[in-house]
C-alpha cells in the first residue's frame, strides 16, 4: 500500500473547510472538513448522523452550504444544482444507483449527450462502441445493448462509474457502494477504484466496513456529530483508534441494560407460520424482559414482528397477549391488546414525516383524546407535549414537521407516540438504526428503564453488540425459523452468529463492536 501520492505543486482535488449546513433548527453539519488529493482514495467514516451524507450532498450540489469554504482543484465553487457539480467534474455514486431501467446500458451512460450522426439522428454505433471501450478500460463485461433492468446493483454502480469516467470526472464520491455487494463484486469494484486512482483521479469512499477501508484507502477522515475529528494516512492508524474517535466515548458504555425482575407472560406466540417467510415460530416474552430477535438481514425477523403486531397476515398459529387471543392482520387489534410497534423504516413506516410533531405523537392515542367525538389541535398538543418532553425531543414548537429532524430525534418522536399508548409490550425493530451515538445510548437506557418498570420488550437488531448488551434472552432466526434460544450468559457473538448462519463450523470475525454487524449479508 502506498501512501498518499502528492505530486508537488498540484492543488488538492477537493477541499472543504468548516462547511456548515442546517435544516431548520437542526444542524446536520457543523464544521465539515475534507481534503482529498488527486490520485488518492480517501475514506470518510463516522457513525450515522455524523454528517457524512450531508457533506456528500453539499459536494454533489444537492444541498447548498450555509457557511465554510468549498474548493475544487483550487478554485472556489458554489454548486446550485447537481448538474453544475457534474459539469465541474464531480461524480457521486450512491449505494443504490438510479438508472432508467427500460433504456439500454449505453443509453444510460450517454443520457442527455448522445453522440449524433447525420441529420441529428442518434449514432447508436458510436454509443455502443464508446460504452464497450469504457467497460474494457474498467475491465468488466457488460453488454452495452442490454436494458438496465435486471442488472445487479454492482453492475449498476459500474455503469455509474463508466458514466463518470466518460464525463472525465476528477472526483468520484462513493457513498456506501459495497453495502449491497457480494465479495467478488466488492473485489471488482476495488480493482476499478484503484485503476481510477492510478489515472490521477481522486476518490472519496464512505463505508462502515473497516476491513474495506483499510484494504482500499490511502487516507481516512473521521467525522462525529456533524464535525470534523481527524484525518490520517491509513498506515498510521488502527481500527480501534478510528472507532474510538467515531463514538467519542468508551464503547462499553453503549449498552447499559440493568437486570429487572421478570414477571408474567405478556406475549405468547404459538406455531406462527407464513409459507415461504417464516415457519413454526413459537416464543414467549415476560414482563420486564428484553428478548432480542437476532439473525441475518432477510432471515424473517421483521416479518415475524410485523405479523405479531398485525400489519401482515399469517397462515397458521396464534398470538396471545396476557392470555387473550389477538385478532390477526389488524394493527388496531394489536394496539388495543397493548402492543406498540416501532418499525424498521422510520421515514416510511414509523412516522408521517410531513406531519407535525404533535400529530405524530398523538397519532395512535388521538382516538381517546376527543370530546363528544371532536378532536382539537389543543387536545393533541396537550397530550403530545409531555411525551415529547419525557423523551427529550429537540424542537422549537409542536407544529414543526418531522421532516427536518435528525434520525435520532425522529426515533424519539416514534417512541413518544408508542409510549403514549402505555403499552404492555413494545416491539422495536432496529431501535438505533441511523441515529447518532448520543441518542443511541439514550434509547438503550430508555429501553432498560422501561423493562425495569415491567414492560415486555421484543427487540430486533442487526447490531450484535446491541443484542448482546441489551437482551435478557436471544432468539436467533435463520431462514424463517428460530434456530437457537440463548440466555444472557450463553449469548456470545460466536454462538449467535453460528446459529444465524445455520452453520456449526464457521467462526465469524467479531473483532470489534462497530464492525461486528458487517458480517451480516443480505439474504
Amino acid at each position, binding site marked *: 500500500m502506498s501512501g498518499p501520492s502528492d505530486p508537488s505543486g498540484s492543488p488538492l482535488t477537493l477541499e472543504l473547510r468548516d462547511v456548515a449546513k442546517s435544516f431548520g433548527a437542526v444542524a446536520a453539519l457543523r464544521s465539515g472538513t475534507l481534503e482529498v488529493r488527486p490520485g488518492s482514495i480517501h475514506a470518510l467514516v463516522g457513525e450515522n448522523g455524523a454528517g457524512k451524507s450531508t457533506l456528500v450532498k453539499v459536494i454533489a450540489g*444537492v444541498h447548498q452550504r450555509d457557511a465554510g469554504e468549498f474548493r475544487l482543484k483550487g478554485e472556489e465553487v458554489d454548486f446550485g444544482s447537481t448538474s453544475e457539480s457534474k459539469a465541474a467534474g464531480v461524480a457521486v455514486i450512491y449505494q443504490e444507483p438510479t438508472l432508467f431501467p427500460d433504456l439500454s446500458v449505453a443509453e444510460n451512460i450517454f443520457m442527455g449527450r448522445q453522440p449524433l450522426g447525420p441529420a441529428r439522428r442518434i449514432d447508436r454505433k458510436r454509443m455502443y462502441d464508446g460504452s464497450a471501450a469504457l467497460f474494457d478500460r474498467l475491465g468488466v463485461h457488460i453488454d452495452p445493448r442490454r436494458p438496465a433492468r435486471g442488472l445487479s446493483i454492482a453492475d449498476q454502480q459500474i455503469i455509474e462509474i463508466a458514466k463518470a469516467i466518460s464525463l472525465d470526472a476528477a472526483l468520484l464520491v462513493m457513498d456506501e457502494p459495497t453495502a449491497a455487494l457480494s465479495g467478488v463484486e466488492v473485489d471488482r469494484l476495488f480493482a476499478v477504484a484503484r485503476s481510477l486512482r492510478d489515472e490521477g483521479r481522486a476518490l472519496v469512499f464512505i463505508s462502515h466496513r473497516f476491513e474495506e477501508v483499510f484494504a482500499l484507502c490511502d487516507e481516512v477522515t473521521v467525522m462525529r456529530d456533524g464535525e470534523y475529528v481527524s484525518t490520517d494516512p491509513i498506515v498510521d492508524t488502527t481500527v480501534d483508534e478510528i472507532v474510538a474517535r467515531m463514538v467519542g466515548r468508551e464503547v462499553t458504555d453503549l449498552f447499559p441494560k440493568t437486570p429487572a425482575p421478570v414477571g408474567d407472560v405478556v406475549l405468547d406466540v404459538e406455531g406462527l407460520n407464513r409459507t415461504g417467510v417464516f415457519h413454526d415460530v413459537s416464543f414467549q416474552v415476560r414482563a420486564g424482559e428484553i428478548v432480542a430477535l437476532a439473525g441475518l438481514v432477510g432471515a424473517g425477523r421483521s416479518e415475524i414482528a410485523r405479523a405479531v403486531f398485525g400489519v401482515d397476515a399469517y397462515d397458521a398459529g396464534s398470538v396471545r397477549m396476557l392470555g387473550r387471543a389477538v385478532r390477526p392482520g389488524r394493527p388496531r387489534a394489536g394496539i388495543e391488546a397493548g402492543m406498540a410497534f416501532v418499525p424498521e423504516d422510520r421515514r416510511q413506516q414509523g412516522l*408521517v414525516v*410531513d406531519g407535525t410533531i404533535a400529530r405524530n405523537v398523538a397519532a395512535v392515542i388521538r382516538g381517546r383524546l376527543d370530546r363528544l367525538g371532536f378532536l382539537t389541535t389543543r387536545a393533541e398538543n396537550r397530550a403530545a407535549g409531555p411525551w415529547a418532553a419525557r423523551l427529550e425531543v429537540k424542537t422549537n414548537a409542536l407544529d414543526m414537521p418531522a421532516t427536518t429532524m435528525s434520525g435520532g430525534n425522529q426515533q424519539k418522536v416514534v417512541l413518544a407516540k408508542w409510549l403514549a399508548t402505555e403499552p404492555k409490550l413494545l416491539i422495536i425493530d432496529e431501535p438505533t438504526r441511523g441515529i447518532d451515538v448520543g441518542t443511541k445510548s439514550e434509547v438503550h437506557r430508555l429501553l432498560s428503564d422501561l423493562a425495569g418498570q415491567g414492560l415486555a420488550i421484543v427487540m430486533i437488531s442487526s447490531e450484535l453488540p446491541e443484542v448482546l448488551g441489551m437482551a435478557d434472552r436471544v432468539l436467533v432466526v435463520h431462514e424463517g425459523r428460530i434456530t437457537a434460544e440463548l440466555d444472557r450468559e450463553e449469548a456470545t457473538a460466536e454462538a449467535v452468529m453460528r446459529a444465524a448462519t445455520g452453520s456449526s463450523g464457521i467462526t465469524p470475525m467479531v473483532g470489534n463492536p462497530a464492525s461486528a454487524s458487517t458480517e451480516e449479508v443480505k439474504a
Partner: protein
Amino acid sequence: MSTSTLPTTPESQRSYRPYARPLVARLLVNREAAIIGLLVAVFAWSTVNIEAFDGPLTLYYLFLDMAPILMIALPMTLVIITGEIDLSVASIVGLSSVLVGIFHVDMGLSIPVAGLLAIAVGTLAGLLNGFLVAYVGLPSLAVTIGTLALYRGIAVGLLGDTAITDFPQKWTDLVKERIVEESSYPMVLIPIAVLIVVFALTLHFTSFGRGVYEIGLNDQAARFSGVNVERTKLFLFALTGAVSALAGIYYTLRYGSARGDNATGLELQVIAAVLLGGVSIFGGRGALHGVIAGVLLIGVISSAMRLEGETVNKINIVIGVLLVLSVISTSFLAWASGLRSARRWPWATRPRPDGTGKRSQS
C-alpha cells in the same frame, strides 16, 4: 401486569411552544387565506365596477349555479387529500338524475322516495369505485375514468336522448325558492350549509379526519399507526357517490329535466375548484374553507364576466389561467422558501438515501 410504563425522567420536563409562528402569521400566510383574500377582492372590485353585479339576482343565480359543484367539492376534497381522485362524480349526477325521473314519473314514486333510492344507487356506485381502489388496489384515476364511462353509459342507456320533464311544480319551485323573500339566498343553501358543517367538522375536528390527512401524506405509516386505510377510502368514495347523487336530484329539479347527459364535464369543474382552494393533488394538504372560497371565486368571476357580456369560452380561459397560476404559486413559494420535498414532484428524482434513511446494514 398493569404497572405504568412511563420513563422515569421527571426532571427533564421541558415544555414546548404549541406553534412556531405567531397567530397572525398562521392565519394569514397560507393558501386558504390567499384564496379568500382574492375572493373578497374580486367580489369588491366587481361590486364597484360592474353594473348590476350588486343587483338582487347576481348572487342568487351564482348560488344556484354553483350549488352542485359546491356540494360535490366537499367529499372530493377528502378524497383528494387521501391522495386519490374521483372522476366519475358527474356521471353519478347524470345517473341519479335519470333515476329520479324514472322512479318518479315512470314508477310513480314520490320525489323523496325516488330521491332516496337515487342516493342509494349513487352510494353503491361510489362503493364500487372505493372497492376497486381500496381493496383491489387499482389506481383511482384509472378506475374512475372507467366508471365515468360506465355510469354515464347506464344513464344515457336508460333514457336514450329523451328527457323526463314531468316533475311537480311544488318540488321544482322549492329548490329555487329563496330562504327569505327578496333575499339572494336560495333554499338549496340550507342543505349545503349543513353539509359544509358536517364535512368541516369531520375533516378538521375528528380522529377520522386526521387519518384522512395521514393517508395522503404516508399511507404506510398511517397503517402502522392503526388507521384502517382501506376502510377509510371505501367510505370516502361511497360518500362521494352519495353526495353526487344528491347533487343529481338538485340538478334535475332545478332544470325540471332528467336527462342522461346532465352535468357532463362537471367533474373537472369540481376538481378545478378543489385545487384552486389549495388542496394538493398529491394528497395530505388542504382545508375545507379554502375549497369553499375556491368554488365561490369561480362563481364570482363567472357571473361578473357574464354580466360584462363575455362568452363562456373567455370565462373558461380566465379560470383556467387562474388555476394554473395557483398551482405554479405553490411550487414557486415552496421553491422560494428553500423547501425541498419529494412530495411536490413525486415523479422527480427521489432524494438519495441519506444516513438517516434506509441502509441495509452498518
